[in-house]
């Protein structure tokens, strides 16, 4: 589904990514991990088109997306969430989801202003779909709250919900567990698995929480100082020497 080939990126003399390749198979729940500064977020931003790579190419569902704009990539069915939450703070929970429906609907300024019949049916359909998504992420009771009034955990859920509203075939989750407590993280994990299995959405997860990653992912790629040092099944990764050394410097490798 996603092929990342020989990606390199230099930021002001710092090699953020060096010749990194990996792939995400259709239907998989893949994870991209690595210590701080390993280049995970840079990779996410390159995949989703926020900035281009210096070298290398990325293809998605068979088409090259390396130089496309983020919006164009999103329209091809690749949706993402953000490490630093990027919700529409002054809009309600439901409206946030509805914005996610943007690319799946078509009423423009004129049609909407004139409230043409097709606009009305489209709005109703979007509304129903959005409420359904809200229910699936457990926010059905909070549709009319302002997004900024939600607790952090629910804001993360809402971001995922908004991404789901675009009906993506690949979902990039950028550190969805950051800032969550143990219980919230557990719920999040369950939901991610459910999305993967029930909705059949391919997922690429960037995460710090090793426990979560090891528990739910089916394949893992490990980055360190911008280079890929390992990839494979969780069990293999846990035993990999390079990975353990990489993490020992900063973090507890026991998980």
């Amino acid at each position, binding site marked *: 589904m996603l092929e990342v080939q020989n990606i390199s990126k230099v930021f002001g003399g710092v090699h953020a990514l060096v010749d990194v390749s990996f792939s995400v198979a259709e239907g998989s729940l893949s994870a991209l991990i690595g210590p701080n500064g390993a280049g995970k977020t840079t990779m996410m931003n390159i995949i989703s088109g926020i900035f281009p790579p210096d070298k290398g190419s990325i293809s998605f569902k068979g088409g090259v997306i390396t130089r496309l704009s983020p*919006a164009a990539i999103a329209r091809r069915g690749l949706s993402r969430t953000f490490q630093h939450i990027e*919700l529409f703070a002054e809009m309600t929970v439901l409206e946030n989801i*509805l*914005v996610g429906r943007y*690319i799946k609907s078509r*009423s423009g*300024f004129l049609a*909407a202003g*004139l409230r043409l019949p097709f606009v009305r049916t*489209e709005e109703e359909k979007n509304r129903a779909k959005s409420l359904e998504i809200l229910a699936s992420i457990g926010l059905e009771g909070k549709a009319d709250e302002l997004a900024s009034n939600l607790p952090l955990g629910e804001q993360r859920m809402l971001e995922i919900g908004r991404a789901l509203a675009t009906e993506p075939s690949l979902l990039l989750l950028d550190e969805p567990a950051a800032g969550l407590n143990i219980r919230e993280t557990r719920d999040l994990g369950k939901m991610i698995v459910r999305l993967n299995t029930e909705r059949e959405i391919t997922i690429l997860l960037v995460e710090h929480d090793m426990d979560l990653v090891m528990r739910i992912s089916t394949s893992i790629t490990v980055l360190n100082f911008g280079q890929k040092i390992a990839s494979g099944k969780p069990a293999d990764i846990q035993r990999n020497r390079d990975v353990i050394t990489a993490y020992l410097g900063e973090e507890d490798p026991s998980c």
Partner: protein
Amino acid sequence: MVYALPNLTDDSYFITLMIFSGINAIVAIGLCILMGSAGQVSLGQAGFYGIGAYASSVLSQSFGLPVVISMLCAAVISGIAAVILAAPSLRLKGHYLAVATLGFGEIIHIILNEFGPGGPSGFGDIPALSAGGFVLTTPAHVAWVVWGILLLLMIFSLNMLNARPGRALRALHGSETACNAMGLDVVGLKIKVFVLSAVYASIAGSLYAHYVSFISPSSFTLFHSVLLLMMVVLGGITTVWGGLVGAVIITLLPETLKAFEELDVLVYGLILTLSLLFLRRGIVPIVTAKIHSLLVRRNA
């Protein structure tokens, strides 16, 4: 103003005030959508207002087009001007966008001064508003038409804002990064909302020209743009109702202040300053919040 309403209704002075309020309100709701919903600033709205007034006047006077047609053509011309301004301005934000729009408005003013019919003196005998052979002669008729158009644009705006494009605009205001990730066409949306506000301003400008029947560049200056901005900020930027209320207040205020004679400018400035200091979110949002909280308390 409510105090004054009953004995003023058949007073053409009052009606004229309502006409000017309505015209200003049309520009203001466009500006509300641009600024409040989409978060773009414009200090050049008087430019579009002026294009609307001049284009429609020239087309109907010199080319003999029916007024309705010339108003529509003027709106198209303003829309094109908006695209020309918006396309390169998109990368700009905040003060930089403000100064770009300011420059645009001033350039339009200079163009009208230099190349407009009549130059700085302006020109008159502009045909009155008419549609299908029916000419609007009395102010009352004009007032009905102006407020009718205002009402239609209001409904249009509210419909639009409560549907897909409106949500997209507000999302744009919230987080452009997220908009990109949701596949929103940020550039296109920004251009479209600029065009929309320009068209509103243009319609208002045309109405003004055909009603007063005389226009000169001095009505379409930076100071008018600032005044429009003041309406929107005072009324409340987050809702089109704020534009409407702000426009009516700013139009009526100088008339109300006539009793202060020479001091009226001073009092006007003081009222504006105090309102901005104490009614920061704008009148409409504050009042609706108040009503909302009262209702909630009653229900509880």
